[in-house]
Structure formats: C-alpha cells, structure tokens
C-alpha cells in the first residue's frame, strides 16, 4: 500500500491497444482492474508533481489512466483497489450503476454495470469534486455501438438508434463525396480513433493533497492557478511522438477525435489544416448527445467535464492552390498543429511556449498506398 510510482516524462503510455469490433460483442462481460495510487509525475520542464492516478486496464495490464472500452450492452466488471492513503470513489457520470460509495484505503470493490449507448464517457473520482479528479483521478471510457452503421452502410461511432440524419450524412459523405475521396471511417483501426483527455495541473493544489491538508472546495476554483496543461498526461514536445495522441494518415483516412476535459479551465481546441465535424457532445446529466446540426469547426469549446467527438476528415487541405497539389518542392509529411487557443494553456511552468496542450496531425501523402 501507498507505494509511489515514478513517471518520468516520456514514460506515460496509455491507450488500450484494441478496438472492439461488433463481432466481439458476443462476449457477455468485459473485466477491468483499476488501482488508485499516488505517483510522482515529471512535468515537461522537469518539475515533479504529486498525483493520484488510476492504473490498470484489462487484468494483468498496468497503464496510467487506461482507456476503458466496451461494447454497448455488455456487462462491464470493474475491480477497483484503493492503494491511496485516503478514501476514494469511482463514477462514470451519466451511466447508471457505474458508481461506488467510498472505498477506504487498502479496500477493494467490484462493480458491474451495463455498457451504455455508444459514445465517449469520462470515469473519475467524484469525491470532494472537483478535487480528486483535478489531482489526477480521471480517464476515458469508450463505448462502441453494437450496430453503428448508417442506413447506407457507413460505419459510425454511434448506435443506429441514436444517430441523427446530420451525423449519418457526414459518415455517408466520407469516401463518397468528391471532397472526401478515399476511405469511409474505419472503426476497426485504432489509428483512426483517438482519445485526447485534456487536463490542467496546479502543483500547489496537488501538494496540499499530498500533505493531506484540507482544501476548501468553495474557493478551490478561485485559487486554482494551473501551471501545466496536458493531453493524456503529457504536453508539448512529449506529445509530438506520442502515438496515442499524434494522428498520421493519408488524404482520405477520416479520423475520429474524442476530446474530453477533466480539468477546471475551459479549453478552446483549435486544429490547423482541416476543419473538423462536431459530431457529439454530452448533456449536463452526462448522456451522449449526437448532434442534429453538425458544424464544421476549427475551434470547439471544451468546458470542464465536456466530451466532444470530432471527425477530422483528412481532406486535401482546402486552401492549397489546386495547381500546387500535391506539393513538389515542399517536403512531406505536411504537419499541422492542434492547440488550445486560450493560449495560457500553451505554457508550462509559466513560460516555455509551446510546451502545453498542443499536438500534431500529419498528412503522409495525397493518397493511401495500395496495400
């Protein structure tokens, strides 16, 4: 108990490596183990910050902040062990049964719940909200639809019963409209399904928790002065090569980006190179809300506890003159940034631009090579 993991920058892996296809949906249950533990985590500038993290994944796997995945309707079995020095809870907001009461230090708890309708969810510790989720106890829970096909047969991340005409039109356009020549969205390729969990860290707050000092929840937001801004636990240069975050592909390989904000600051994710389709968000009660009017955005609002799914179409960057496509003199790949436009989030430790919440997508070429 209370063993302390050290996570050097570059060491934070994460992201379950499998996507669950509908064929696997026959499996009645899916089991995950989660360990709530303290960790000393190295920030991009070398600062060590105390965090509480969920470690785990499928039995035997031990990743920080694992992405949990299930197929709609499956029974999810979670075995949660609290190795932290204080009580914690577990919750997937908006999902019935996906919640615990206090788990005392050293105690374990098993819960079962039915995987809800396909979409993007957050798991977190709701105790003394938002305290423990800010200190690190959060992650992504992804539910694959049992039947995600549109009427025209295009794969989507949403159950046929929750799809809107607008979202169907987007996925039907992929690989069909000349503007989106190439592939349909491929739900079975992990490289086409990204999870970006945004968070912010104020080391002073984490220090209070480490020292087991009380935190006044009424003034927490006013006193929250974040100094590190992360995606999946990393920032800046560390994200550049992170395969769970970085997106690589050819024109015509549309990619889903599930964006989540577990912090307390409202982010403004901004992507270069292509506008993205805002497919879904969440209701205040936590349910998935598939959009009935799908906007093409280059910036989307990501407020605390928001989950927004975007589709990066991987179209030819549309403002390249067609006479100059594909580029001959300019080197490939074409690289584009995604960064939060509320630019305080682009800093680390009060400076160090652009070592904050910034990552990249890259176009490897004008079309996918024939396999």
């Amino acid at each position, binding site marked *: 108990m209370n063993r302390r993991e050290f996570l050097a920058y570059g060491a934070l892996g994460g992201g379950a490596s499998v996507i669950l296809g509908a064929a696997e949906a026959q499996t009645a249950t899916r089991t995950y183990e989660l360990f709530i533990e303290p960790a000393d985590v190295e920030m991009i*500038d070398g600062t060590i910050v105390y965090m509480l993290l969920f470690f785990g994944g499928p039995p035997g796997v031990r990743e920080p902040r694992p992405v949990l995945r299930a197929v709609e309707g499956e029974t999810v079995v979670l075995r949660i062990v609290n190795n932290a020095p204080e009580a914690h809870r577990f919750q997937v907001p908006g999902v019935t049964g996906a919640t615990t009461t206090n788990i005392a230090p050293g105690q374990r708890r098993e819960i079962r719940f039915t995987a809800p309708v396909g979409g993007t969810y957050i798991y977190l510790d709701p105790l003394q909200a938002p305290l423990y989720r800010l200190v690190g106890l959060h992650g992504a829970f992804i539910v694959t639809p049992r039947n995600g096909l549109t009427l025209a047969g295009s794969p989507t991340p949403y159950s046929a019963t929750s799809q809107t005409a*607008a979202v169907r*039109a*987007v996925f039907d356009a992929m690989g069909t*409209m000349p503007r989106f020549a190439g592939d349909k969205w491929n739900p079975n390729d992990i490289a086409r399904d990204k999870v970006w969990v945004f968070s912010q860290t104020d080391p002073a707050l984490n220090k209070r928790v480490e020292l087991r000092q009380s935190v006044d929840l009424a003034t927490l*937001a*006013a006193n929250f*002065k*974040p100094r590190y801004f992360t995606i999946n636990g990393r920032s*800046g*240069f560390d994200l*550049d090569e992170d395969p769970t975050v970085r997106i690589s592909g050819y024109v015509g390989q549309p990619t889903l980006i599930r964006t989540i904000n577990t912090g307390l*600051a*409202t982010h*403004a994710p*901004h992507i*270069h*190179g*292509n*506008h993205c*389709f805002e497919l879904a968000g969440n209701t205040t009660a936590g349910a998935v809300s598939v959009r009935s*009017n*799908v*906007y*093409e*955005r*280059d*910036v*989307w*609002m990501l407020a605390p506890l928001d989950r927004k799914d975007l589709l990066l179409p991987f179209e030819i*960057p*549309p*403002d*390249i*003159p*067609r006479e*100059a496509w594909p*580029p*001959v*003199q*300019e*080197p490939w790949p*074409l*690289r*584009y*940034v995604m960064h939060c*436009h*509320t*630019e*305080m989030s*682009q*800093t680390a*430790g*009060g*400076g*160090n*631009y*652009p*070592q904050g919440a910034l990552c*990249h997508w890259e176009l490897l070429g004008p079309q996918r090579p024939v396999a």
Partner: protein
Amino acid sequence: MTDFPLAGTRFDATAPLNFDSFGCNTYKVDSLPTPDRLEPDVRFVRGVRFGLELPTPDGKTIEVWRFEDELAPRPVWPSPPIRVRQGQLVHTQIYARNNAHTIHHHGIEPTTFNDGVGHVSFEVSDTYDYQWRPHTPGTFFYHCHKNTVLHFEMGMYGLLIVDPPSGPGTIYEGGPSYQVEAMWVADDLDPRWRTLGHSAGMCGEDVGLNRFDPKYFCISGVFAPNTLNDPRVMVRAQRGQTVLIRLLNASYSILRTTLPMDAQVVALDGHYLGGPEKPWCAPYTIRANTPFEMVSAQRMDLLIRPRLPGVFTAKLEFLDWVTRAIQNGGQGVAQTQIVVT
C-alpha cells in the same frame, strides 16, 4: 526536390525536431522562396510594429503590437483587415522588422510552410510570402504564431474576410444576402503582459504567462465603455435591411454575447451553414436576449433583420476561463448599440 534550397535547412530530413528546436530555439529563416510558388492574383504586405501606445478610458496608455499595411502605412490597431475573394490566389508577405515572427491565417488551410507555425516550419526573421487560395467565403483572421500566447495577446492580429466571387453582399454565392455589415472583434488586455519581452519565457523562465488578468476590454480596437457610442462599433440600419455581424472572439476569455434581437447564425469558423453540398448542417436562430458563448478564436456570422425602429443594446461579457466570473471584478463588459431607423 533539388531545385529548391532546402539542403542545409532543418527540412533536409537530417535534423529532426528536438526539445530545443520545438520551443526555445525554433528554426528561423531570414527569407526563403515560397515552395511550389504560383503567380498571385492579389498581394498583401504586412510589417511587424511594436510600441503603439493606445489611450485607455482611465487616462493611462497601453501598448499593442500589430501588423502594418506597408503599402498604405497607418498606425491602426487591430491590424488592417485582409479582404479577398473566394478562389483568388493570395500572397501575404511578412516583414518581421523586429526579431522573428510569422503570419498564421487562422481557419485558412494551406500547406505547412504557408501555415505560419514556427516549430513545424520556420519563423521569419526578414521576409516570406505565404501562399494560399481561399476555397470558401467566410470570416477568418490572421495572427502571429510565435510565442503565440504573448504575441496574439499583444495585438498581432487582424480580420481576414473572404467574399464570394461576386463580392460582398452575400454569405456565399447564391446564399443569404445582407445590406449592412458590422465587424465586432472582442479582445481583452492585461497590462502586466506589457512588461514582457517578445521571447519571454520561451527558454524556460517562469514569466507568469499561465496567469491572465485583463483590465481593458475592446470591440474592434475601441475600449469599453466607449464601445457603446463609438461609430466604429455601433450598427446603424433601416427597417427591412438585413445586417451581417461578423463576430470574432480574439480574447482569452469566454465571450458571452447577448443580442437584443433574434439572430440567424449563417456561418461558424468561416464555414457557412447549409447549401446543397452540406446536408449535415443548416442555419439556426438564437432568440433575442438569449446569451451565447464563444471561446477564443471562434467566429460567428449572424444575420439580424430589425423590424422596429429604436435603439437596442448588445452586451459582450468577458468570463474567466476557470471561474467563469466576469473579468476584472465584474468590469469585463463591453456594450454597443444597434440603431434602427
């Protein structure tokens, strides 16, 4: 390609990005020819200028940085708009003048070299021609993308408007029309950040760029509360006319806008809603006196169709990104008027 001078630059594929060249020591060029260059239909020249001191309503001054139109120099802020037509081939030439900068045409999607992001391409110490051809009409903006947290906040931005091929007056060719056009660019300024140098923090110093406490609030360069009656911000229209408001949040606050009349949202982030090529979206209406929010860099194109004469007040509130409190102890508000005759 051998006919293009990349050998010896970081793009000869022998010098991968590292921690240092990612931030502190970003790759810089004095000048570089534009790769895959074409002859432009239209050309803009923008030179970086520091040191413009603007008078504030409390009797002080505050410094802004800006891009000057070097073909028609005038000390104006925000930087002069770039206005082009859909399909024109555009070159924007930067003259850095003071150290290294870039121009990113926000929402325009060209190649990486023409996108103006230093760490994936280069910062410009002298001059470069950014090449792009806007494929869709809409509301965009341009800004410096070096130490962006600071350079954008210091004011290095201007509007970028793409009209349909037939020119101003419609949202897109064959789309909704308007007779009156207003441009509201919301911004907030923190005096403390004026004490910082252009490269502040980039090589590891803690200069507090994670903390933003704006004291002044502007619409299109006019400081609140003067926004209420300033003709650069106010809208004047006649009954029966359609007014287009191009709204940009160039601040680091959550912008909460309340309009005194129904508004039809016809475009977001430079992409119009509806039309035969976009079966996934359609214009929608925001009812009068219903607040709506935008985060930094978002744009909304709103059509209002006043039916009654009178003077109507619009309110823009700047909210802190963590607490959502109105900035500066509740003072972070800019209002203006829509006068209908």
